[in-house]
């Protein structure tokens, strides 16, 4: 089973998460052609290469976040850390312990191997 690096819960079993898939901007339904609308509904990139996709951590933090995964090898690249800007949302963490330190500064970045 794949270990998915959740930015909040750390590496978790794939069964704890749901792959939402790549998100694309929604065109204005009043000013679009049937082709554009069909592309928006159905067409996604399917490369044997790095892709950005949305995951939902359904059994853990129950948050949505974006990860970069290689569709050929299933490696994750630069998993985001708490406090990183992920997609359009900004996450903040509550820092515990020593005052003044940056949120997440004392946490080692976790990787699942592969290119960085």
């Amino acid at each position, binding site marked *: *089973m*794949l270990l998915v690096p959740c930015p909040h819960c750390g590496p978790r079993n794939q069964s704890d998460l749901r*792959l939402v*898939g790549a998100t694309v901007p929604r065109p204005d339904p009043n000013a679009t052609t049937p082709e554009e*609308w*069909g592309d928006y509904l159905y*067409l996604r990139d399917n490369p*044997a290469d790095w892709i950005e996709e949305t995951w939902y951590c359904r059994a853990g933090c129950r948050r949505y976040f974006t990860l970069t995964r290689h569709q050929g090898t*299933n490696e994750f690249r630069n998993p985001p850390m708490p406090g990183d800007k992920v997609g359009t949302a900004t996450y903040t963490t509550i820092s515990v312990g020593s005052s003044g330190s940056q949120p997440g500064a004392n946490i080692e970045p976790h990787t699942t191997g592969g290119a960085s």
Partner: protein
Amino acid sequence: MAGIFRRNGAGDAPARYSAPQLARKGLTGEEWPRVWRDHEIKPAYDVIIIGGGVHGLATAYYLATNHGITNVAVLDKGYLGGGGSGRNTAIVRSNYLTPEGVAFYDRSLSLYNSMAADLNINVMFSERGHLTLAHTDSALRTMHWRAEVNKLQGIDSSVIDPDEVKKLAPSLDVSTHPRYPILGALYHPPGGIIRHDAVVWGYARGADHRGVHLHQKTEVLDILVEGGDGPGGKGAGGKVTGVRTNKGDISAPIVVNCTAGWGSLISNMAGVKLPINTHPLEAAVTEPVKVFLPTVVVSGSLHVYVSQTDRGELVFGASVDPLATYSMRGSLSFTEELAGHILELMPGISKMRLLRQWAGLCDMTPDYSPIMGFTPVEGHLTDVGWGTYGFKAGPVSGEQMAECIATNTTPKLIAPFALERFSTGQLVGEKGAAAVGH
């Protein structure tokens, strides 16, 4: 039998398999000629087919047989039948949900029925009946729906109760004890299993015999297109001029994409984007035991289907992995879930051991129906989007694609599966009958 595959002069045409031939070869010790031959790659062909599986080879075979087009090359980056054609669970049936789907797969089933005689090869077709189990009221309702659609189209298909299920497959637990009790089943007597490798070899041999060139280990790196409105002259409005392979450029006015899981990568080379996601589907096989399971058993709710081969092994399959990926690594979670689900159906096989598991790539489309026929690039045709149901459609796809290429018009049977349906909204929703329906 091993002698069939021995190299015996590249120039020999395949011999006809028959009892007198067998007797003669047995008495004289003479070797069988190769099943198909190797050729030098020609600089130009009339038609290039990418992908040497059931679909690609059947297309080549029917082009040569039905339409007399023999200047055809089939290119495969690996070996013939090494992709989905050799990884599926070899189940054939035609009890689909939509009238379009039913008509299409029924034609395929009739071609499978006469295949042994047509191709002069023993494909070991076993018409053993096909049971799709219903574990919930809503599933039972869908079974009734499917049965009525099937009957209307003249397909032998009916809903039966648990007692009849028990008679057909005594090893199934039809009691009310399981978490998902068996409430009934859709019974489809013409369904069955077939030897998938023999189907590939039969089409390859038939195509080769009629002059088609089969080039293995020939990987297509690019499709050459000119005049299109995309980058490099590709894309809509363009015209195919040939392909670039790891063995050099080959020119051809028609390039057909029959590459299943890799379909979107290949069509991208011509500037055609396909609404396909590639998911692996895992399967497994047990050690051989005495024959005890006379039918094919499918359970959509439990995500499992099982049949027993003539050798006695149980072949299991499941639904596709939820992750879109080109990786074909097996996973323990699959084995675990499979074992749990199959024991729910057949508690008696708990001591059987799995021999091996494997995965194949499925090119999933949004509506679980294929994408066949012409694309916005002239000369580039697709026969992809076959998801988890490609093998059973192989013969009819080949026949219809060959007609499409030879006549330059879309045959009626595959017209509903055109790429345009995703912008016109006329999807052919087969998820209810195809998602785990093997």
